[in-house]
């Protein structure tokens, strides 16, 4: 079960990577980055549900189980927060850029100056 979810996550991540490298429209690049964020979240949730937390695997780690089994999901919450901040700022940059320039194709945007 863990392997299935990780394979799905890997496929999504590679689709996102391909999109980031190959698309010319800058909003398509941002959307591909979002797909990569989501792939990472799928992997985090899968690890959280199906593997023994590293903190419990070593002797002397304590027996406070509840604190460790949801580490992956907690990290996924913060990934979502950072992704939301990133997409808000990125799209604001794109809109500011589209006002000043004729194009938003990344090949034409190698500098930010006018």
């Amino acid at each position, binding site marked *: 079960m863990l392997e299935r979810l990780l394979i799905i996550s890997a496929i999504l991540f590679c689709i996102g990577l391909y999109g980031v490298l190959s698309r010319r429209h800058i909003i398509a690049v941002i959307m591909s980055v979002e797909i990569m964020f989501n792939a990472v979240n*799928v992997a985090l949730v899968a690890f*959280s549900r199906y593997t023994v937390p590293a903190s419990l695997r070593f002797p002397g780690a304590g027996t406070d189980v509840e604190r460790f089994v949801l580490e992956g999901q907690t990290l996924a919450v913060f990934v979502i927060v950072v992704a939301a901040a990133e997409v808000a*700022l990125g799209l604001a940059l794109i809109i500011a850029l589209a006002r000043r320039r004729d194009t938003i194709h990344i090949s034409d945007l190698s500098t930010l100056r006018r």
Partner: protein
Amino acid sequence: MAFDNLFSEIVFWALAVVTIGSAALVVHLRSIFRAALMLVVSFLGIAGIFAMVNAEFLAVVQVLVYGGGIAVLVIFAVMMTRDVDTGNRSTAVQPVALMMGIALLGALAYSIVQAEWALLPDSLPGPIATVFVETPTQLGRLLLSDYVLAFEVAGVLLLAAVIGALSLVRERHDA
């Protein structure tokens, strides 16, 4: 627990196919607007996968933040820019990107299959099973105790992002 019968297997594979298929369409479609709509489908499919692996809170957050907020932001940005219909062409490095993606996928799949994971037993031990019965409660407790510093920093980050976005898109009449 999920995955104990044929029905949940079917639902899982349907979600997986929809998620991956629509993600592939996002990077394939020429029309950037349709790609944005496919992105929403992909986000909702991932929310379904979350719900099936005991991440109910994350599933709801995924629908609200990605299916709602980020989708609206992206579609707004699409409508405020040009070249919407044909702009999503490939760059010159497209074949290289495809090869890199396939190579990375192969490497990842190989290591995922080869690795020896420290899996939890099929029938979860008592304390862990109770955590997965009430994940939102436990998650809220964690966020406000062990991870409270990161929680506050995330709030500051969001505030900074909102202020930054506003100052970036503000019309400057004096300039």
